[in-house]
């Protein structure tokens, strides 16, 4: 089987697998990550989302051969219990999960979306999160969480710029 190198959450990982094996199976299987989930294998639900080159990407359909040498960010590496990413902190504060199986997709998509658009309107939050599925119907809390994260990031960035100004 061919060998591939993928930088996962900042760490170089050597993987040996079929060229057509989707990235998800390397993350879940070889690397035993718990964030990206198998939901559909068809890029229809988003449970497997990772951030690849700054874009939220469905890892269940992208073959390992297409990410050789690439850098991937996952929920597992996003934040720590002591220092959660602002989007994670907001999801915890808003209790924006029920079963939690889809949560990975919402958080990773929101992280990538807020990096591109740090000051979204509520309508932009909805369009940022389009295409993700949640069977439990947690959407209201998810919208509150992403709003909260956006506001927190905006106030952090305002603090930073005022520090720079000073």
């Amino acid at each position, binding site marked *: 089987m061919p060998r591939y190198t993928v930088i996962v959450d900042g760490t170089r990982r050597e993987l040996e*697998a*079929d060229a057509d*094996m*989707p990235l998800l*199976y390397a993350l*879940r*299987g070889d690397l*035993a*990550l*718990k*964030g990206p*989930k*198998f*939901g*559909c*294998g*068809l890029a*229809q*639900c988003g*449970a497997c989302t990772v951030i690849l080159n700054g874009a939220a990407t469905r890892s269940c359909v992208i073959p390992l051969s297409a990410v050789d040498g690439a850098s991937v960010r*996952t*929920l*597992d590496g*996003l*934040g*720590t*219990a002591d220092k*959660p990413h602002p989007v*994670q902190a907001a*999801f*915890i504060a808003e*209790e*924006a*999960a*029920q*079963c*939690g*199986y*889809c*949560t*990975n997709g919402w*958080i990773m998509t929101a992280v990538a979306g807020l990096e591109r658009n740090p000051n979204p309107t509520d309508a932009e939050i*909805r*369009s940022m*999160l*389009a*295409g*993700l*599925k*949640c*069977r*439990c*119907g*947690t*959407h*209201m*809390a*998810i*919208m509150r969480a992403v709003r909260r994260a956006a506001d927190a990031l905006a106030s952090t960035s305002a603090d930073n710029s005022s520090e720079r100004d000073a």
Partner: protein
Amino acid sequence: MSDSPLPVAFDRRAFLKSGASLVFVVGTGGITIARRAAGQTVSAAARAIAPTSLDSWLQLDASGAVTAFFGKMDMGQGVDTAIAQVVAEELDVDVARVTVVMGDTHRTPNQGGASGSSGCRLGANALRNAAAEARRVLVARASERLGVPAADLRVTDGRVSAAGGSGRAVTYGELIADGFATELDWNERYGNNLNVTGVAKPKSPGDYRVVGTPVPRKDIAGKVMATTEYCHHVRLPGMLHARTLRPPVANAVPVRVDESSIAAIPGARVVRKGDFIAVVAPQEWHAIKASRELKVTWSETAPPFPRGDTLFSHIRAAPVASDSARGGFGGAGQPINAEPTLAAIASSARRVEADYEVPFQSHARMGPSVGVADVRAGEALVYSDTQKSHDQRDGIAKILGLPPEKVRVIWKPGPGSYGRSDSDEAAFEAAVISQLVGAPVRVQWMRNEGHGWDPKAPACVISCKAGLNASNEIAAWYFRAKGFSGWDVNFNSADPKDTLVGQLLGIKKGDAHNFGAPAESYAFPNTVKYWETIPTLLDRASPLRCAHMRAPQEPQVHFAHESFIDEVAAAAGVDPIALRLKHLRDPREIAVVEEVARLSKWQSRPSPASSRSDAVLRGRGVSLNSGFGGYVATVCEVEVERATGRVWPRRFFVAHDCGLIINPRGLHGTIEGNVVQGVSRTLFEEVRFDERNVLSVDWATYPILEIGDAPESIEIATINRPEEPSGGAGEPAHVTIPAAIANAVFDATGVRMRRLPLTVERVKAALA
């Protein structure tokens, strides 16, 4: 990957006491020993879990940590946090000290698993009583230790001290030693109605300090930080990955398998038993490839289903297999005598009649079924996200031919489950395959199986008729639901006859019948309400077999009944809330209807609204449900786009009474989920099929709600009744949603939608 850890530390005392497990270790292979060392064998992990033993329910350790053993499980609404609150309340410890172990057949008493919104409603009772008794025992020990009468002791976060500040104190951790060794009175029932009582009486609600407060959910951080171990993550040493193969035409069976077609895939091989066929491989991707590349010749079989577009005419024409007089929850019901009602309606001054149609719907869980099993040396260890692990244990024991005590099912969190979903299937299949191959096996269904082969919410046609007298007063009321049986698949898997693999191995499927009829307190004169079920379409391994899905069949029943009440109100020219209040008799139903009218600033007038010429039409609708000890009235405000047919339920108002509220924040999130999932089922969800098979096999062919269609707001008014026992909250609000939306669409447009779902195509056509 190493062994997956148990939810709590392995009970070393139980291990040391278990001589049998040590004997068992001798002579087994290295992998097995590694597994044993982690305390994961069926024998080694066994606890004495007699319901009569207080130690079965609660364990304390020297540090004061409390473990509560709960024979139910959380599907994502935070039930475990509520249980921890109840235990912490009665024990007088900080809720952070309490860990709740759920649904492990060898560690938790059989409380019936998750169903019927019973997590708090019924499941909390035994642990409340047990914790109260535990506090009594510990305080008695403290009294002896400190030489202070128990009445003069108080407990603060597990520290027992003499009132009056003498300084003498002892902690629970110092008092627990070898456990409680205390007997409880048990009502000798298993399942949802299991209860135990001790000498101590639980606190009165007026003294609550933890119950009723918004304690943060214990499960959220793990889900958000990617540390929660779901069933999907479980891996055992030497585990093989399996994928199952399903026939292109339902009811076809494999007649020839060309194993050479997967010879090039490393380690892949075929596993067959009866008509069940699967592939296994050491690597998951190879198992998937093998399942795609394996050449199987399936038997020629006559297509077993009617054409999908003839579903409702099929139901109308089908013979009646059973009815509410013969079966259902609580056994046989009232004899059905519709004739006097129908005669009264026929001779009424005015008649209102309507039929409502609901198609099959799919549980369509976020992740399709998964199960891990290790069946070797006469015992089975199974990991499952079932809603009912004790029942599943019994069913797996039967399919494997093992005694139930040799089968341990460990529940792990899964992708939600709202009824008898596919969650029970893969664990059975993993057990069967593991027994055949002699190694641990993980079965993961693929997406097409999760949609295409899960049990379906039963399709139905519901007929309602009312007679009005010359004064527009209701004179007679008729309700009949006719549909597929909600017990086509039993609500638990205690027998493999209710699983796909069981039926493929030749076990005859059951023939139980249930549907539903509304039970609200409307006092209409000359009323008859009943249900009829029709024969299943295919009596073996059917992708259209039916089972309950969130609130059994109540969403279908209340879509019809609560829509029809509005139709009668419109025919009589009266406000739909006024009509409800005029006929309701239950004060708690009346209270939520009045509360939702206040919350939504309801303007009393008949439907439809007078202005219906705008491009975007606006209307409001109401709906009521009571059941599982919950009382819910919902108002929905919709916008209907005339040009496209899009219905957007923009705002919801929910008045909710489920008795004593244990965690208001958890309840709020639970209600929101009820509403939004209800919107999805109302607007989008329909299983499509043809004569050969189910055609809804993924999210493209079975669309559900996405965030763009989520409401703008859901305002909730909860009525807390500390004097009433906690009722259910997992289902009652969900039941109100279809009719609240359909009634609002009628109010907005003057067009009555009597068939779910209210897709844009269907609404646009109705408005044309």
